[in-house]
């Protein structure tokens, strides 16, 4: 029902002195800041995905570098980490059966990336690996390190592929835009099946392909509404919930007989 809405978790405006002094002796190192106007977002049952806007600022930016567009920002919204089992189906006597499996520790449930430019243009693959940045570079730790590297690689790739296919891992190239020399806006996607919990927003600053600085903020995503109350009751008071489910069924059966009785 609800289309693609925009949740503006808006601005931190730690506005800087308008222009740096004409001639600074030692160039100050750049810094990056992001901020969220709210630390929690409630989504309702009809949630069908949304764009989350994060504002941020660059401190001590070199105007020359900025004009040449050599600053790049990558913003990541990372969901809570959970262990995940990846299973592969194989044919046994013609029937498809889950056979091989690989368990990974601490896999972020969701991982949305927004960048100023395509990832391969920002910096080199090695830096991504070191920073564990980007859905395809994210380090996924297998629970059993003794498995063969080929197997681990295969299941890691499958895990990434499944996560992208369900929209939980996404990449928004051009999702970060500089509004001025110091101010930028990042748009990350929240998938319809975005997990609830504490999400971490992180911003990475690159200057001419070199990693400079990182900044992070936290965001709580909660589900609200009637359906969510049912979910909570089912988990917190599971016995009473079961009694309710049984009573409801008996009541429906009895009422159905009263209303439609044919004997």
């Amino acid at each position: 029902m609800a289309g693609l809405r925009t949740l503006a978790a808006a601005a931190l405006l730690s506005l800087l002195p308008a222009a740096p002094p004409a001639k600074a002796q030692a160039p100050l190192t750049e810094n990056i800041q992001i901020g969220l106007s709210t630390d929690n977002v409630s989504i309702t049952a009809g949630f069908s995905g949304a764009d989350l806007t994060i504002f941020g600022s660059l401190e001590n930016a070199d105007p020359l570098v900025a004009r040449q567009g050599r600053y790049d920002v990558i913003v990541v919204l990372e969901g809570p980490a959970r262990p995940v089992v990846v299973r592969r189906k194989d044919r046994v006597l013609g029937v498809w059966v889950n056979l091989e499996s690989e368990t990974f520790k601490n896999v972020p449930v969701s991982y949305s990336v927004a960048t100023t430019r395509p990832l391969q243009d920002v910096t080199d693959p090695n830096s991504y690996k070191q920073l564990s940045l980007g859905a395809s570079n994210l380090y996924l730790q297998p629970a059993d390190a003794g498995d063969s590297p080929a197997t681990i690689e295969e299941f890691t790739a499958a895990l990434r592929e499944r996560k992208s296919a369900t929209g939980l891992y996404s990449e928004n190239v051009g999702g970060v835009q500089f509004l001025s020399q110091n101010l930028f806006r990042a748009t990350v996607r929240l998938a319809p099946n975005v997990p609830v919990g504490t999400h971490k927003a992180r911003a990475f600053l690159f200057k001419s392909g070199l990693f400079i600085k990182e900044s992070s903020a936290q965001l709580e995503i909660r589900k609200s509404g009637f359906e969510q109350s049912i979910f909570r009751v089912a988990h917190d008071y599971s016995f009473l919930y079961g009694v309710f489910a049984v009573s409801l069924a008996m009541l429906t059966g009895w009422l159905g007989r009263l209303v439609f009785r044919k004997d």
Partner: protein
Amino acid sequence: MGIYLPIAEISVNIFVLLAMGAAVGFLSGMFGVGGGFLITPLLIFYNIPPAIAVATGANQVIASSFSGALSHMKRGTLDFKLGGVLLGGGIVGSTGGIYVFALLRRLGQLDLFISLLYVVLLGTVGGLMLVESVNALRATRSGAAPVLKKSGQHNWIHRLPLKMRFRASKLFVSVIPVLGLGAAIGFLSSIMGVGGGFIMVPALIYLLKVPTNVVIGTSLFQIIFTSAYTTLVHATTNQTVDVMLAFLLMAGGVAGAQYGAKAGQRLRGEQLRALLALLVLAVAIRLAIDLFVTPPNLYSLSGVGLS
């Protein structure tokens, strides 16, 4: 109109579910079965996770069997003592079933096991029923009187020890097969989300030789409690009962059942059984195809300890 299912965590069309409930209710009224064996596969075809389809199917079965058992109680075609003994076995079987269910879920083999059980059981029951009803149809067409089994005919089951008298069923039989049958039905109820009527009814008639008129009432009586117990245990151990989903199915089901019962009165017994057999076989074949066709995704993800 879309509705979000809180436990299944997906959005579904409310009218599809009501229609599904009504259609299955119609068939269950027509054939005198609970309909769980149709609801659960249908929910799985509709992309409801199998674990939730099973637990919710058990919940839905309570409604239809409760309203059915009430009618039989009024007509006096319900053997409480026989139902009680079946139930005793049922609780044991159901507890075992829930344990196996949780274990298979951990191993990632639950979906496969559910499909296999459905294919084997529905295939066998549907096949036997089809053969029997086609033979009966042929016999009536050729004018021969149907061969009735003589009452008082005994088989090995009646030679087992620990005999007990069931007055309403005019039966004097060992409790061992009764408890065993109850346990088997309880096990299937918790793993397949079915009431088990489609196995219970023929077993009571052909194995225990219970008079046909008390069979359905007694079977419904025991199914209420077995599926209620199954629902409760699934709710507490696996949190897989979706009341919203169950309610929509029940609402459609109780209405559909009444019209089905009326339609069923216009068809002859053998014709009804042949139709039901074809339906059961169709469901089995559809599930079997899914087992053999290459799945679109060979890889699947699941949480540790969850589905």
